[in-house]
């Protein structure tokens, strides 16, 4: 009678994608997060994105650290690979996994504590190495599991549930990611799936280090007046720079746009990012301008969202290291241990 699993019955109009799965097939276990947690909405957006991209679940690797956010991978794409790492160490494990098998789709899920406090160093390095991944931070500005202390991303001056103002400067993961060399950086809000789902799809199709900072209100500890990460505050201060239409592969484009209102970016895999302008002119391929705009927004108390920066021709870690195209974990002994003759040759070349 208590806490049932989500019934298997579904809407009669539910359809299968090209991979042969319905959206429901991309679900995971029922969430044990607090009712109303923004993280569950992000999980739902990931489910939607994977369904729309016709992804084969067994080709996805979900990695996370410790925290509410890092529990979330259990609640989406159940039939995929998963790894809960030590607190803040998800980037190292993901880098290693990516090196060993470059064919999987890597998704890192982390929180503001896991990435901006204990894991800040690891966060910076995975970005600068350009690991081909989608790194999502479910950012709620508090430590939910330990009852609501400010995290490192809490805005200076925001008020805790107990009424205390935060005196520390906040870490802006978006600015940090752009600075550290991530080639796809966006920010969104768990309460706006129309914006979030295309961003996740585009990030997953991106061939380099893609980072999404998703503001995800903590209903239990950070959804009160005075919080800058509440549903109400984010809705009021959300400054979306663009609306993204993600267009997969070489499919025909059917949507009509008024001239001058759309910027098109073609990613390396052929997918198109169509950015509908909202108000101001904003060029997401200009790294310096992006950093400036994000900082201006921060100063003005705006929550700047949308696709903030993209390098359409990213280079990833495997490119830097010049590894073979075949995943290393599939190479045979003969390739991996070419024998004493090869060793002699290498040694000779170093003499």
């Amino acid at each position, binding site marked *: *009678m208590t806490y049932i699993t*989500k019934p298997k*019955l579904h809407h009669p109009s539910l359809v299968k994608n090209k991979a042969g799965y319905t959206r429901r097939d991309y679900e995971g276990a029922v969430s044990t997060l607090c009712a109303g947690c923004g993280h569950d909405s992000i999980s739902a957006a990931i489910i939607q994105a994977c369904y729309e991209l016709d992804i084969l679940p067994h080709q996805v690797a979900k990695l996370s650290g410790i925290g509410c956010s890092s529990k979330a991978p259990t609640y989406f794409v159940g039939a995929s690979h998963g790894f809960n790492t030590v607190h803040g160490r998800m980037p190292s494990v993901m880098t290693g996994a990516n090196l060993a098998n470059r064919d999987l789709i890597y998704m890192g899920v982390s929180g503001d504590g896991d990435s901006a406090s204990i894991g800040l160093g690891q966060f910076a390095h995975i970005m600068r190495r350009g690991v081909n991944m989608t790194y999502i931070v479910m950012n709620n500005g508090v430590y939910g599991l330990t009852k609501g202390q400010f995290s490192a991303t809490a805005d200076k001056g925001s008020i805790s549930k107990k009424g205390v103002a935060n005196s520390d400067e906040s870490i802006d993961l978006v600015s940090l990611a752009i600075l550290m060399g991530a080639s796809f950086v966006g920010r969104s809000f*768990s309460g706006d799936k129309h914006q979030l789902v295309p961003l996740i799809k585009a990030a997953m199709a991106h061939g380099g280090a893609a980072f999404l900072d998703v503001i995800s209100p903590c209903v239990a500890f950070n959804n009160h007046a005075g919080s800058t990460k509440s549903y109400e505050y984010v809705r009021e201060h959300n400054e979306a720079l663009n609306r993204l239409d993600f267009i997969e592969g070489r499919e025909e484009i059917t949507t009509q746009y008024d001239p001058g209102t759309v910027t098109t970016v073609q990613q390396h895999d052929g997918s198109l990012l169509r950015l509908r302008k909202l108000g101001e002119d904003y060029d997401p391929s200009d790294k310096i301008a992006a950093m400036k705009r994000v900082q201006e927004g921060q100063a003005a108390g705006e929550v700047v969202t949308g696709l903030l920066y993209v390098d359409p021709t990213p280079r990833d870690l495997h490119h830097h290291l010049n590894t073979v195209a075949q995943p290393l974990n599939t190479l045979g002994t003969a390739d991996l241990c070419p024998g004493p003759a090869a060793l002699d040759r290498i040694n000779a070349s170093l003499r």
Partner: protein
Amino acid sequence: MKPTDIKNPDYFHKVVDCQWACPAHTPVPEYIRLIAHGRYSDAYMINWKSNVFPGILGRTCDRPCEPACRRSRVEDETLVKGKKEPVAICRLKRVAADYKDDDIAIHMPKAPARNGKRIACIGGGPASLTVARDLAVLGYEIVIYDQDPKLGGFIRTQIPHFRLPESVIDEEVGYITGIGNIEFRHQRIDSMKAVLAEKYDAVFVGCGAPRGRELDVPGRQEAAANIHIGIDWLSSVSFGHTTKVGKRVIVLGGGNTAMDCCRTARRLGGEDVKVIVRSGFEEMKASPWEKEDAMGEDIPILNFLVPKEVTHEGGKITGVLFEKVRAEYDAKGRRNLVPSGEPDQHFECDDVLVAIGQENSFPWIEKDAGIEFDKWGLPKLNEATFQSTQPTVFFGGDAAFGPKNIIWAAAHGHDAAISIHKMLIGENIEERPAPGVNIVSQKMGIHEWSYDNDPTVDKRFKVPHRAKVEALKDIMAEVELGFDPELAFKEAQRCLNCDVQTVFEGKLCIECDACVDICPMDCITFTDNGEEKDVRLRLSAPAVNVSQDLYVGNDLKTGRIMVKDEDVCLHCGLCAERCPTGAWDMRKYYMEMTHAEHACRKH
């Protein structure tokens, strides 16, 4: 779209599809839950109050509730390993009757002291019995007239005992007469004026539609000895006057009476029994399950054959000649049966049973009795009050609007009783009483509800039947054995508890999307307001079933609306379970029709 007015009792009533479809509006999910709890007597009493004949209807009801059942819209063929099917509501009703306590009668009301007013009921069938029950408990003195020696009307005479044992009729008729103040007179009424002369305070006519339609083809008169009108023949079988039939029998007609005729014929010596219908198999009036049962007893159903002539030799029937037809539809979609051009077909037989319809017949109501009839020979009635043009005379059941069924007769009876009572205490009978409504939260804890909210994926359970060989040997042996308590529990668990309503309070909502994300049926959407037609298409999943309402909630901070498509909701309560602010709640909506007993209490 305007926000939904959930204060209107019809709104949530309509969500309970079975109850809405039931002519008597029986609170179905409530009694199904009671059956699951093993509280059979309580389940029986809910039915008894609402539809008067739970044991009878649990075997014979036309069950309009079942095609309406939400379960048949939400099941997934692969999950249930079979086709989408409704909950076996009707057969669960029988479970309540089969397993109730022996002393159930102690829960039933007793007649108070007489109030001095007398009411005559013409005909002893379900409509009259309902009127009698509803009014006897108010102190009225009821006199029921019937031409047959026992009460029950068509329930007793037309429904074969292998479908409805006579003991069940005796029992449930007994509960009504047991109330007191009800007198049965075994007397055929031949004159309405004579009845009116007896100065009853009101007269209720519940005499049914007693005349079987005739077959009008050449040879009918010559072979009359072996051609029987279905309902008269069934009645004769019921009273034991007819005990045999020829080996080869043709049943004409495609309704439930035809099904009863053919199955009865199989038990009285008919070896080669066929049903032959004018229409197509699909358009037959008989309920699908009755057709199935007939075919299960080796009775073929031949369609698109119109009887042309009864063949006979030396005053003895030899068979029936049929013309083969096909259906043609005109521009308005009306069906015409036109000759197919194929050669006529002749079927040999020893007896013919004619079950091609029933008609109302009121030869006993004099033209100058003050009761007007329409051109179809039906009394002119107020559709809500059942009052005829003679103000003290009311009609109900098949006598009112032509042949329907038992559950409609009970519903008519309740309404007519309200009218009679209101009239006799000097109230306006056109003011109808509102239903009694009680709506209560089912929340017991954070993740706990007072109902079993986890929907099963079991497919509909079959009611066990008596072995065919045995069943065909004995006309008194009931074919259906009914669910045992274990099967009944499993079948009851298929009910989705549609009466536990999702109630939304916009002011509490923080628009976190938790309900949208968890809903297994994609029922919930937060979106901009617009015209219903447009809103229906831009929901999480399109709401294409326009016969089902959209629940619109407002008062949201963003100015959007919450739209819930009632069509496929499982009432699993997950929206409320995942709601952090209690904006969603699961509330049991118990709605009971008001009967005569409470109809006039204004306080």
